[in-house]
């Protein structure tokens, strides 16, 4: 499964522009299954320059190396390649399986269904490795689900950065993201923080 090093020195050539698909991710809709800290999945989508920053981590629960990350996009995108920076000492994921445009993937489904594509990953601390996709299949992607079934021998899997390279089209799939209508008044949502005096 192809992994290629950059043919140039990254400091001279601006790679950052290529890896800007993270701006098209609907960050509030990013969820993960089997993460230790709720919401930590959102932190691994950041600019290319910060890919080696190990302070942000998506960690799986102890004794369980599996992770599923669900990534919805604000527009339909075309994904050319994916870069994953894993943890040290065997905490890096060793395999990756991708599903497209499905929001109901949990662990039983992930193991039953055939992914659109799967890759064998290598330990990639500095983020130099990128894994190209079968581009024809990755057109018109509204949501991407990544399943990491195993790692390099540690108890838990750590992911520090997930980078996506590709193009964003202007087409949106869903007009309304997530709206809650106030069908009945709920006092806890309308707390006054300041006193007001009324003149009689």
């Amino acid at each position, binding site marked *: 499964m192809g992994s290629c090093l950059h043919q140039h020195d990254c400091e001279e050539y601006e790679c950052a522009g290529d890896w800007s698909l993270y701006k098209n991710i609907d960050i509030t809709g990013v969820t993960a299954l089997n993460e230790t800290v709720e919401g930590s999945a959102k932190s691994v989508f950041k600019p290319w320059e910060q890919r080696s920053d190990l302070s942000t981590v998506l960690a799986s629960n102890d004794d369980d190396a599996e992770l599923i990350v669900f990534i919805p996009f604000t527009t339909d995108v075309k994904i050319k390649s994916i870069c994953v920076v894993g943890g040290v000492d065997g905490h890096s994921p060793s395999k990756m399986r991708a599903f497209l445009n499905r929001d109901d993937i949990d662990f039983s489904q992930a193991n039953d269904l055939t992914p659109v594509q799967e890759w064998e990953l290598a330990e990639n601390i500095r983020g130099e490795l990128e894994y190209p996709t079968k581009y024809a299949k990755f057109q018109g992607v509204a949501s991407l689900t990544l399943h990491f079934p195993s790692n390099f021998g540690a108890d838990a899997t750590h992911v520090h950065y997930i980078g996506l390279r590709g193009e964003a089209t202007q087409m949106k799939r869903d007009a309304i993201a997530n709206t809650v209508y106030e069908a009945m008044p709920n006092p*806890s949502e309308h707390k006054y923080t300041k006193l007001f005096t009324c003149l009689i």
Partner: protein
Amino acid sequence: MVLEATMVCMDNSEWMRNGDYSPTRFQAQADAINLICGAKTQSNPENTVGVLTMAGKGPRVLITPTNDLGKILQALHGLEVGGEMRMTSGVQVAQLALKHRQNKHQRQRIVLFAGSPVLADKAVLEGMGKKLKKNNVALDIVSFGEDDGEKVEKLEALLNAVNNGDNSHIVHIPGGERVLSDVLISSSIFTGDGEGGSGFAAAAAASAAAAAVGGGGGAYDFGVDPNLDPELALALRVSMEEERARQEAAMKRSAEDSTAKGQQAGESSSAPDVAMSDVGLVDTTDKSKDMMIDDDTALLQQAIAMSMAQAAQAAAAAGGGPATTDTSMEESGGDDQDLAYALQMSMQQAAAAASAAQGSADVNQVLGDQSFVSSVLSSLPGVDPNDPNVRDVLASLQTDEGKNDDQATKDKSK
């Protein structure tokens, strides 16, 4: 205001026939489930709740997650109790039902009512908990009913396996004193939702207690939120104080009476009780004898004396008298279980006596009828009308009512 889909796992096994939660364990559970459904849908109108039963032939989903309270109430209607609870498969079916929820943005939660003993191993439960955590499902456990010693430990282990950042809770509700729903309202299962949850809890307490006088509402004195309805709260407080004053006066009066009777043996004091119960056509002889075995017999005798004085008043007043004194007694009876029970029982007898009437029969008159009482007593096993203790009791009864005529007849019949 968390957007959540909840599946409630209900225990309808044979263990639920027990009556240590009023009225039966099963009914208490159904009430609690209604409350939970209401709370969830009120805190966020897009929340959905579903119900499944775990016992019987197997786990059965009564209603898939919906935000329509009416459908949920309908599904809870006409359920039958029987079989054994299968906890693990019940939770797995709940997980499956949640997986197929319509709105994938909703968080997943299971509320488990564990009333019967837990048969599964601790290891199996922990494995189940880990699987729930892995799939981002929170679990609330309501442990009540049977406790075979291991149950608490197993459920705590399950909770620790599921808990992820304090999203799962457990509540242990021992039987007897309190109503299941009331304890739940004040527990973290409701307030764990955050501010929205506790807002509902207060409202639910107010509305539930308004329906049952003095019953629910853990937070407020009279079950009515003074903020919501100040005039009603004030009126209730004033009437409560008036009733207390009246009862204290009555207690004082009967305390003087009971010093005369207080020296008698327990058996003899059961005689007037028995006599009254026969007059009232209510068979509570067994209960009264059980009460006599209680430790604080003096308190009970005082209660009975007071209740007899009350019964006299009630019989004289007839009509709405017993009804009002009933409710007032229930309110003040919260302090002492035995006292409340004695009062209740005597009110039943008094009400029955008043209604089963010899018209507006005065209980005193009936008691004063020496021949009737002695015939009743002689028909009872173990009571000898010529027993000096019994005669003493009858004598004191007559002197209380101040009927010198009966005294004379009693002297004649000696």
